[in-house]
């Protein structure tokens, strides 16, 4: 399973250092916003959640290993606000 360097950001540029979660695994944060980290390939749903586990920011991204991917040139995933229901 290939690992790809990724950087998860919020569309408003905020939330640096906040934890994000992947694919509904709310037991454990998958990383922090703004840091260069690694993800497996394929489709992944990235989310931030509030204290009640309600998703607040979200992106569904297709993580692919493109040429030149590195810690210095990560794939960027941009979270958008989740509309209030």
């Amino acid at each position, binding site marked *: *399973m290939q*690992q790809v360097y990724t950087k998860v950001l919020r569309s408003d540029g905020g939330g640096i250092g906040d934890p994000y979660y992947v*694919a509904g*695994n*709310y*037991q454990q944060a998958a990383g922090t916003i703004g840091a260069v980290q*690694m993800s*497996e390939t394929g489709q*992944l749903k990235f989310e931030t959640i509030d204290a009640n586990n309600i998703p607040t920011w979200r992106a569904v991204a*297709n993580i692919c290993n493109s040429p030149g991917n590195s810690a210095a040139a990560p794939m960027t995933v941009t979270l958008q606000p989740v509309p209030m229901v």
Partner: protein
Amino acid sequence: MVLAGCASPVVPGKLAQIDENAGYRYGTLDKQSPKALRDTAVLLAFSGGGTRAAALTEGALRALADTQVPTPAGSVPLATQIDVISSVSGGSVTAAAFALGGTSGLGSYEKNFLRQDAQGSMITGVILNPTKLAWPRIDILRDYLDDNVFNHKTYQDLITIDKLPYERRPYVILNATDMASGSVFSFTQDQFDLICGDLTTVKLADAVAASAAFPVALSAVTIQNQAGCPAQQAAPANPRSGWETDARGAVPSRVAEDRAVEQPDQAGIEYPIARNFDRFHRGTVALTYLNREGQKNYVQLLDGGLADNVGLTMPYILMTSAEFAPSVQSWVNLGVNKLLFIVVNARNETDNDFGTHASSPGIVDTLENTINTPIDATTFQLIDHLGDELDPRLKTKGIVMVDFDFIRDAGCRVHFIHLVTSWALSQQDITDLIALGRAMVLQSPDYQKLVTALGATAPVAIPSVDQICAPYKTPVKTAAP
């Protein structure tokens, strides 16, 4: 009354609700006893092999129990800081017993199980109670384990059991093989969410017996699938569930993501995004447990070694994916930079003469070798592959292999590799296997390097592998005068 011990099929309690923060999950255990080694992941994988595997894995745990490492709370045995043990078959007996009894329970496990003639006791039990002849064969093993090793304890007891203040019990993943798909079936709540079962109600003996149900000799363990239950239907509305709704109903988000496909470039063909076939297959198998076709009302489980002889599947997923907890990949994203991964492989080879004659081997030899040989080859390939794929940010990687193949002396190697697969071995064999498992961990350069990185020193292995091997060594040929 006499059939009280017979429990086929296993009917887990039906889930009241799907909640990622409840039940036998890593997160539940971690909340009780958070990681003390904040920058280190400690994972173990235990193979099958009856009492041979159970004793060798006990030895590996003793090596960690004898290694003191510094933590913010003081110096503690490394065995109290294990994050995960993934196991199959004979290794599952030790894994589950350790999750229940911890470091202080190692001695009683050795006395009450490893040094007992479990095989003889099971046969005697049938002679004294001939109604057991009517039981499914697996129930005789399950009954023995329930009465003599696990004392009727369930997964709930792994959550609530009393522990020392500094002690973390490992999140134990006992693995069986789903006969229908040939895939690994792990006894985790993530897996049981799919069949709408509450794992905390399942007896440890049932899970271990499923993990150790070697085909032909033992019958399969059957688990009732309750998928389609109200808890699953309600799950997408619960933000703590990790479930969503697709065109056919409720589904875990991770399964939906695993099954995501690119736009088909030819009519009728779909390829997974980024060609991640491993995830796609995982999602496809997971989907079958939701029983949308009505073809999986029961799950038939056999020995975990059929799909994965060393229990490597789940550790591999945890090291490369964020979908399941505890994700080592996620830990590395958050600052973990050391990994200790101990693989205990108690595989054996039968003492055969296949290479000495032209006639074909008999059906028993053919069956045994057909099952074992390809899995052993895959095990080594997967471990090599894992070494290449591990996150480069892991500064210290201790991958420790406990395997008879790494015994230098040929005579000693052959002695251990030819020990039979059985639930009874001689007292000397038990002594040797425990000592060997301990010594092979302590003498491993990777183990010593990892312990040094933790700011400690691995104890000297006494007896060493050489000392354990002394009675079995190949005689050195001396030149004729």
